């Protein structure tokens, strides 16, 4: 069987310059990443889309789009390394669109409330004074999550129970994804961030959809189902699942 990978930067096939390549999704991560080591690279621009194609057939090298719309994370230092007289192999980390969707922030302060008067009251009562704010009408958690996802230009599928919502303020410093997690899982009192390790968040790539489920969700479907035959398994290693044991949960529900 023939396996081939092809890496494209914008519309250019850059596979010839690739020395080694790792395509991975870390355990529990919502986004995928590519770690590419180039034999030598002269970027005309650091802005560009990266796509990885794969195929089982030599004739159609781009039959599967494995990695779509990747970017180099802007906060990453040292993308290009030049030393006098030598060609330094450069290793570049590329993350896919889910990483971008996860970091999209609202432009202004958002106030989610069932009606405008409740939003105004919540804005007036906020801990720190807020300036210009946008009103996002939503009466339930599911509706609010869908509104936030629409602002981030991705779709969302919520498979966790709904609850009616009171007014809540989302500062522009929080990403939309973190705001969604705060609505779904609650906000940690100490850190002020969404609580980690609670609901399961998946980015469903074929539908550009954020899928939110939890341990009791039975109808979770992400991607194609992988049926591995016995021949397809070279080896496996089993270990017990680790778990974090929280034995007490204090939920603070503010007065409306």
């Amino acid at each position, binding site marked *: 069987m023939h396996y081939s990978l092809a890496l494209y930067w914008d519309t250019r096939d850059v596979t010839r310059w*690739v020395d*080694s390549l790792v395509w*991975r999704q870390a355990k529990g991560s*919502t986004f*995928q990443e590519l770690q590419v080591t180039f034999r030598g690279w002269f970027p005309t621009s650091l802005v560009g889309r990266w796509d990885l194609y794969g195929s089982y057939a030599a004739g159609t090298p781009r039959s599967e789009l494995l990695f779509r719309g990747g970017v180099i994370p802007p906060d990453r230092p040292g993308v290009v390394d030049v030393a006098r007289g030598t060609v330094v192999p450069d290793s570049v980390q590329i993350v896919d669109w889910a990483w971008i969707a996860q970091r999209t922030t609202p432009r202004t302060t958002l106030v989610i409330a069932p009606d405008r008067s409740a939003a105004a009251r919540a804005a007036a009562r906020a801990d720190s004074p807020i300036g210009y704010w946008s009103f996002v009408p939503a009466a339930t958690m599911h509706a609010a999550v869908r509104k936030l996802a629409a602002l981030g230009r991705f779709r969302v599928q919520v498979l966790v129970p709904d609850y009616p919502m009171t007014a*809540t303020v989302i500062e522009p410093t929080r990403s939309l994804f973190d705001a969604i997690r705060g609505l779904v899982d609650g906000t940690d009192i100490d850190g002020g961030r969404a609580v980690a390790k609670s609901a399961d968040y998946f980015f469903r790539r074929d539908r550009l959809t954020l899928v939110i489920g939890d341990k009791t969700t039975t109808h979770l479907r992400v991607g194609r189902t992988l049926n591995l035959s016995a021949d397809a398994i070279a080896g496996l290693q089993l270990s017990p699942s680790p778990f974090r044991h*929280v*034995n007490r949960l204090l939920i603070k529900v503010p007065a409306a």
Partner: protein
Amino acid sequence: MSLSPNKTIRTVYDKFSIPSEFGVGIRSVSEELDVWQHPKLQLTLVLERRLSIVRDSDGAEVQRVVEKWFYDQPTQYPVHELHETSVFTWVPGVNHRTSLILAQRDWKTYWYENGIVGNKPSWRTTREGYVVYDLTGQPYEPIDVEKVLKGEGKLVPQGPRRIIADSARVLAPAIAASAVVKQQDANQHAIWQRISLEEQIVRDDFQRWIITNLKFDYLTGLSDVQTVIELKEPLTIELPIELPAPDLKASDAQAAGVRLEVRGGDGELKSVWPEETVQLIRVESYAIFRRTVTQPARTFDGDPYGLYEEGETPPAVVVRLPLEHTDVTDLDGDPASPLPPPVGYTEAEDNDIPDAEGSWDLVAEVENEETLRGMPGRALVMDEGVEQGGVYEYYAVARVGQTESPESNHETVTYNGSRTFQSSLRVLTRGTEVDVLAPPRDGLDETYGEAMIIEVPADALETDLGQLGRDFGLRHLTQEQPGLECTLTPSFPVLFMERGQQCTVPQAAWETWGNSLHLSTQLAAKKWRVEGFELSARRQGERLEVSPGRIELTEIL
């Protein structure tokens, strides 16, 4: 005192055209019913019926049927029945003017053995009427007394002597067969006489009726006697059993479903003679019904997960907009095809018909499990057709034969499955606190673990805070059951992977020998979920050599 009519119903059927049995065309039929109505009971008896048939040609009444029923009391059978048929026809030797003449009369008498009214009655019907005889064709020969006295002449009697007895015909069939000659000097004559006798004699034997049917034809002299024995209907007594409502207990049995326990519902039969006793009537079966109050993952038909949202969907291509690309083309230089638009859809694999809320479904019909006589009935059912987080309402009924008890108490159960929590509420000045405690884990101290404090922007007035605590408790406190994680090395690079997709791994079995030790174990075929993966490629000469990498899986519980 016989019943007399207190109501008359007259009905005229006009523009009627059927041939009567006496062979004339009909213009109209009128019917008069003399009816006795019981003043209070819903009981109506017809005492007399007069049917009049008017001839089509000249409007003369050609047939009149008078039927009378004589009752002493309002019973099922009358004492006598009279049927008289008068007809406008030629009766040889009797009615040459063709006026309305009584042609046939049936007289029926009912009686009961031993005089017990209400038994199967015996009856006798006597039919009289005109019978047409043919006469001998010889001319009338007057009796010559002298010759007779001399012994030469014959003494030939007049009239009946000339009748041919074998030619007897009842009038109506004779007319129908065109056997009546309408001439005054025809050799025919009609005589009013008895025609037939029918009798049914019922004798009451133990558990059976002995019924003798007797028929006698006066014209032919033939008789027919048959005896039939009919068994009486067996004696059945419907005892009114009043079953009390059984007692239902429903509880969350965690992994086994909802535990439903029914008790009681046995009827009691009290007798006071010869002594006061109470007999327990055993419940044969219990039927348990369920109604779905709420059920998670089911919102409404066609879109169970609320995926479809009306209005403009966010355009798919703008995901790349943060990279400020305006001239996006595909790899061949053509304009990029947009990603498939979102559609209103439901999950393709989910074909279950959602339970209509509010409809009662029969969950189980179980037999009484109590085997000891005289003990109240009981039954135990596990309802497994419930979904975690659903709220269900149950009731039961007890059944004995066709008798069904009233509904038992209604029990509402919130099925939390294998995860149950304790929670408490505290109302504070600025909101409410829901304190949720995880259930103790096997082998661990109750105080083991950490506490988590979160803030949820729920509307405290509208939210069922207990449910909210349960939902968040399920998510945050879920102690994963002892599951497995698997790092799998495929034998070839698997393309198209993403976290969250399902993975089925076949049953893997392996054996190990070490000196005298032999270990054999296997991995049951289960569903797994991809939690992460890695696939690497390295340059080998001109091409990238792809290594299979590894796939991280977790068990789907």
